[in-house]
């Protein structure tokens, strides 16, 4: 029994050390969700990638062209970003060039990730509305959703010509 206790104490210390090293292995939090995407992509561990949503893209491009002269108005779909928990896609709603709301079209699915999304998405939306762009911080515990959200929003804003 004493050996087990010693083993568990050693394990606890080792795991704490491992997490500590990992947490400090590439800068600290918080960080930009857009920046995080680049680093995780280069690490090659996350199969994130943007795919334009078919059908609506043409309309979005046309709308973007129309909006180029005047201040943008209307809804613009972002790209579908595939994260390891599932696709994330948002729609940017603009009124006179200002980002007035963000609608989530697709979110990750199943178990832990839907639970994370339920609290992370409102935070991300609030951040985006406040910043008026997609340069938002990663929500703690929702790294993949944050990155997918930011990237999809950036695509939507690009489509809006902003």
């Amino acid at each position, binding site marked *: 029994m004493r050996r087990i206790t010693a083993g568990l104490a050693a394990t606890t210390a080792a*795991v704490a050390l491992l997490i500590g090293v*990992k*947490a400090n292995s590439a800068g*600290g939090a918080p960080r930009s969700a857009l920046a995080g995407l680049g680093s995780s992509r280069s690490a090659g*561990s996350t199969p994130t990638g943007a795919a334009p949503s078919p059908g609506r893209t043409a309309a979005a491009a046309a709308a973007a062209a129309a909006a180029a002269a005047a201040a943008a108005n209307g809804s613009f779909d972002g790209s579908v970003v595939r994260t*390891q928990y599932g696709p994330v896609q948002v729609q940017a709603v603009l009124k006179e060039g200002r980002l007035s709301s963000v609608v989530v079209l697709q979110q990750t699915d*199943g178990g*832990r990730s839907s639970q994370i999304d339920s609290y992370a998405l409102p935070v991300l939306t609030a951040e985006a509305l406040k910043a008026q762009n997609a340069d938002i911080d990663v929500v*703690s*515990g929702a790294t993949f959703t944050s990155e997918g959200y930011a990237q999809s929003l950036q695509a939507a804003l690009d489509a809006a010509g902003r």
Partner: protein
Amino acid sequence: MPAVSAPTSRRPRHRSAPPQPLSALPAGSLWSRALLLVICAGVPPVLFIWWQNTIAGSLGSVSACLIAAGSIAGLLAAYLLLVLVALMARVPWLENRVGSDVIARYHRSLGEYTVVLVCAHALLLVVGYAWQSGTNPVSEGVTVLFDYTDVWLSAIALGLLLLVGAVSARAVRRKLSYESWYHIHLLVYLAIGLAFAHEFAVGTEFSASLRNRLLWSAAHIVVGAAVVLFRILLPLWRSLRHRVRVSGVVQEGPGVVSLHLTGRHLDRLGAEPGQFLRWRFLAQGHWWQSHPYSLSAPPEPDSLRITVKDLGDGSASLARLRPGTRVWFEGPYGAFTARRSSRARRVLLIAGGAGITPIRSLYESLPGSGSDLVLIYRASRPENLVLYRELEAIAHQRGLGLFARVGPRGRPHEDPLRAAELRAIVPDLAEREVYLCGPAGMTQTVGAHLRTAGVPRRRIHIEAFEL
């Protein structure tokens, strides 16, 4: 107090086959260390799976760290469960080189450790999730249990593992029959199967990586194959090939019987004196259970002998087995053999009660003459000194040392096998290889006495049985 010692040093006539060639290094400690190393070598890859799947920036909060710790605990526990099954797969190399007793000890310690890890995995994740989403742990636990894919299956697995852990706790284990304990233990296979589903469904280490899924599945398949091969197919094949039958039953003492067994080509089994086999007697009331019994005489090409003490687990009814009864078996197993000692050293054998069975085989088959080989046989009463006449015959024939010590153990300073007493019988004790076999409590105390008397741990070879 009978104390028989043959003082002559005439060259003895060996009755058994010449001792097998021994490897230069004593087996045992070295092999067990190698095994530990192999088990530990699996840990870094498991941690690497977590490392690769985790983004450094996501560990910014306490809750995220708790969740990470929970994931690591889960990964380690899943790996160790596999190790635990592999240890018990009766792989001949493990059983004969490392030794069944060492394997069982590792399995026990690692088992306790793993059950704690599994509990930590569940608790850390639920608390971490609750903290992160601002809910209370109880409702979070319910959410995790019912909303997450396959997690309810793993909750059943957790329950089963706790049950197995509980029945293996020493206090409970003593009250259970070997069979109940053994059959409850088989639930571990079910638990691993149930837990496997949630590892792939919600463990992103696997759901996000085909490579990890393949590696993980392959590890499970390899261990599963070893279990089927070594626990089922090999024993079945050997039982059919050697056609072992009971040829005679001899009453040796109060509650002790010897079973004489015959079979074909038994020399091809490669059984060594000191080893045991798991026996299954195909008779009413016996066929569904198997028991480990040591060979109580060096194996012959066409016959084997085991000696069994009634330990209150059905072994008493073995006395009523009829000659001709078919016997299935697994084994031989065990590293309590001549391989354990280096050739150069003189040997002391110590037997407690029914622990005489493997010692009896070793006494006859180990090389040496005169005081090269000394046996101390301990029993609570004279009539419990079973096989004593045979031992006397061997002692006289080869001029070996034989000492019997009878009486209750009493208080520490009265123990007939205390350090001073042992040294009085065998003055060069500290220079010898010591083989010790008996009930677990006895081997523990005598092991301590031996170390007090200056025998290094690596030269004390213990085979213990639980009462």
